[in-house]
């Protein structure tokens, strides 16, 4: 294994994205073709990596490590485990699907649009494989800029303020993260996630912080400082996921962004937050998570329940799905927050931690797939209605567009967790783990499930049933290409729903290691 596969994964979209962005305007359809091939190549590479991935070990694989800026503790350190593999898979698959449905959105400015999309993919790949804070942060931020520009340039009429809010909110979180990690570097002398996790577990970080920041005075102990740093780091991820009440940027951004861009925002970028929690925050701050578990679980519950209630009263199709995304990520948070690594023995790992964490990883993948498919359906919907999305203006579409309604209906059912489809397994595992660890949370969380079912079924009822209502020139059903576009991800929903082991065998070794806290 001499080939630096993980670097290739990042460099291919980076190089091709730059190329596409600089492409002369004339060859519009050529640009689209190059972009699609590029995304397909990246997905192929990821699948190759997945095949080569050794499922018998929890060690980091495909590791690359080179010196970069030693004086600043900066290293080029890449590696992949089950968590990384799931994330990288999403980062390759969702942009491909998004690019495939982007022809309406990108019309006239192809090279800019597809170039930015490829650069965004490069940023995501870098984020999901880097193991040194400097390197990781570079890509964490790099992905934000193309995402911002995509929303700003290709979004709806309110895209300006929405994109501004999106960027600034995320940056507040990023700066909090940065300040936290600078403090950690002062205390621990390293930016390496693995090394920091080791120091965090042994309590040396708290000691180091206490010793390194003496002039703050005010009688603050190392523990309290560590907690403050933890909260800063948590804020960075909380905005990204988002965790209630840091979610307020999301509905307007997801709504104003063109649907294919929203696919990537919800399908992959929201997972950056969950990934960060699991890769960075949990391993480095196990004690702080344990201390704040109660309040954090309450926030996770709020993230599950309140957005689901908010989704019930939305009139805009995209806004409903935006709130639904927050709600689904709430389950990931529930699962992540019940983990208290190293807390208890093997028994606990088996009954609670392992199922919950496996569920979280599965839910990341499932939500990425389902939400991306739903927003792809929204794009196909908008193509037909000329951008009209108000739910009360539509009805009875099932009669005129049975295939569209069928495929979108399956996606909706996957989203609300119908057994046999992908969503069910992940949520089931999360609830199983959470119930074993904190039964009250699981019970309250089911309220969210209920609310989800209500608003999603209402959505379907409004759109698909009743008298035919459709402003404009009617609603034609999907053509062959569109059927394939929606059909493939819907097929995957069945595959993952019936045979989740496909993913679990990748994640399980990582999960067992993380749950055991080492």
């Amino acid at each position, binding site marked *: 294994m001499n080939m630096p596969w993980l670097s290739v994964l990042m460099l291919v979209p980076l190089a091709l994205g730059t190329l596409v962005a600089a492409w002369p305007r004339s060859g519009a359809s050529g640009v689209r073709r190059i972009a699609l091939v590029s995304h397909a190549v990246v997905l192929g590479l990821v699948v190759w990596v997945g095949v080569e991935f050794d499922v018998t070990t929890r060690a980091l694989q495909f590791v690359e490590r080179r010196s970069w800026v030693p004086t600043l503790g900066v290293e080029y350190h890449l590696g992949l485990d089950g968590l990384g593999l799931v994330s990288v898979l999403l980062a390759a698959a969702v942009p491909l699907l998004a690019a495939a449905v982007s022809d309406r959105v990108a019309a006239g400015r192809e090279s800019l649009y597809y170039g930015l999309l490829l650069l965004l993919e490069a940023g995501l790949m870098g984020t999901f494989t880097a193991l040194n804070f400097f390197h990781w942060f*570079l890509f964490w931020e790099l992905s934000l800029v193309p995402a911002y520009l995509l929303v700003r340039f290709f979004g709806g009429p309110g895209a300006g303020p929405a994109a*501004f809010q999106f960027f600034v909110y995320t940056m507040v979180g990023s700066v909090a993260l940065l*300040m936290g990690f600078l403090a950690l570097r002062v205390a621990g002398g390293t930016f390496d996630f693995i090394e920091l996790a080791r120091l965090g577990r042994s309590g040396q970080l708290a000691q180091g912080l206490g010793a390194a920041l003496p*002039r703050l005075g005010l009688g603050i102990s190392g523990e309290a400082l560590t907690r403050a740093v933890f909260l800063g780091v948590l804020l960075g991820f909380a905005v990204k996921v988002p965790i209630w009440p840091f979610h307020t940027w999301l509905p307007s951004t997801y709504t104003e962004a063109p649907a294919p861009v929203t696919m990537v925002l919800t399908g992959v970028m929201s997972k950056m937050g969950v990934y960060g929690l699991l890769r960075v925050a949990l391993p480095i701050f196990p004690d702080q998570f344990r201390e704040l578990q109660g309040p954090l679980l309450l926030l996770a519950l709020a993230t599950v329940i309140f957005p689901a209630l908010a989704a019930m009263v939305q009139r805009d199709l995209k806004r409903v799905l935006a709130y639904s995304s927050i709600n689904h990520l709430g389950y990931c948070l529930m699962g992540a927050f019940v983990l208290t690594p190293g807390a208890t023995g093997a028994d606990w790992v088996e009954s609670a931690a392992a199922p919950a964490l496996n569920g979280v990883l599965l839910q990341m993948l499932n939500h990425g797939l389902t939400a991306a498919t739903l927003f792809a359906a929204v794009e196909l919907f908008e193509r037909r209605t000329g951008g009209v999305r108000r739910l009360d203006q539509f009805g009875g579409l099932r009669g005129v567009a049975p295939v569209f309604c069928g495929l979108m209906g399956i996606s909706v059912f996957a989203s609300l967790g119908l057994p046999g489809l992908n969503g069910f397994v992940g949520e089931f595992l999360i609830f199983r783990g959470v119930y074993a660890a904190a039964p009250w949370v699981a019970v309250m969380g089911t309220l969210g499930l209920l609310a989800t079912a209500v608003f999603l079924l209402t959505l379907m009822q409004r759109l698909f049933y009743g008298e035919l209502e459709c402003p404009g020139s009617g609603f034609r059903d999907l053509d062959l290409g569109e059927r394939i576009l929606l059909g493939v991800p819907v097929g995957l929903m069945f595959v993952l729903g019936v045979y989740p082991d496909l993913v679990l065998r990748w994640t399980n070794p990582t999960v067992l290691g993380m749950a055991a806290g080492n």
Partner: protein
Amino acid sequence: MALTWTIWISMLGAVGVYLAGPGNPARCRWIALMASVAGCVATVVGTFQVGVNSELVTLVRVPWVKPLGIDFHLAADGVSVVLVLLTGLAAVAGILFSWNISVRANEFFALYLLLITGVYGVFLSFDLFQFFAFYELAIVPKYFLIAIWGSTRREYGAMKLALYSFIGSALVLVGVLAIYLASGTSSFDLVRLANSGLPPGVQTWAFPLVFVGFAILAGLWPFHTWAPTGHVAAPTAASMLLAGVVMKLGAYGALRVGMMVMPHGAALWAPVVATLATVGIVSAALVALVQQDFKFVIGYSSVSHMGFVLLGLASANPRGVSGAVLQMFSHGVIAGLLFGVVGRMVYDRTHTRELTLLEGLGLARALPFAAVTFTLAAVASMGLPGFSGFVAEMQVLTGAWQAFPVAALAAGVGVVLAVAFTLRVLQKAFLGPPTTVTPEDATPITLPEKCGALLLLGTSLVVGLYPKILLDWIDGGLGSPAFATMRKAFGWP
């Protein structure tokens, strides 16, 4: 040694351009460009001649005014080398961005090169008297460049800048004389003065005089108000140099004379400096957030970013000071680029800097190259990783965490504000809704502008991705014998 040549080349270039006469702007441009490129090449060659090490390399040393112990003494360590490199780059870029100057072109470029001469001289001087002489040499052309070729309220801007500079110089002069007399060395040699063991009592009151005197030029709050008005009034090339290198003269003087010679004074006054620096970072960013004039936004942004330099210096630990020097370089490159885009690419074509008017022009379509350049420059200026600003600010914040955690947190707020005002101006100036109105003069961006923009952007990107390229020099320089007393006083390893 090639570094010495930077001064002579620029001086000869100034004379040559002046003699070319006012009738032929094209010839003036080319002479100026060749002189600045030759200077830039000399800096690069000289940099490698000095090498990465912890030496203070003497370039020239001849007695000048023997009775007073004044030498003509040029020398370089890693810190001066980095700033000389910045000067070389900024000088070339500035000329590329003033390719359209045609009124009294010979005088313009002569003053420009004279200013560059002074700047090179300051960064290479190790005799305090000579340091001061070059420092003044840099300020005088500045006044004329603004007063003659400037725009909005240029007499006011030029006069304000000159007055503030001279008040600063007066403070520095008093401090310098105090150091000279108290040291008892009968020498203006900076290294000898630094090692002479100045009595802490003298340092206590002489340090603030010298430090503030210099830091006025670095935009130290509350003495920063000359900066935005001066930047706005200045012609493009002059505002590029003003933000790009002249503000660094102040910061460099504060480090080289203030902290290096009087480390005990520096340690004593560090909390005050850190407080002023932090207030500057945050308040200038807040002011930038509500400006209606494009250039004022960039002007206040310079003050805010220079606050990081001062905060790094105040932290008085290796990471902080190293970060301060890197931030001098980084801000020089990025601010130069921002002023180049605003002044040359936008203002010279649209003849307005009002954000509300620019918003209606849809410049992203009319001037795509300018829009892409400004977007990348904005990303660099916000301190996003990948560009030099991030590495510099990261180091400064690391240093500040260790010395003044509260200041570090406040500066973190400043970073968020910088993101907000930069993004606001980017959206307003370039990403406005597409309209049918086109600017009066939407001529495509010319080749010299493109070269200048790529030179500065590329530099920022290379340093951002591989900061080792400069950090080795800076850290080596801070380990040079010149800083020995300072390292000992600050307790550096």
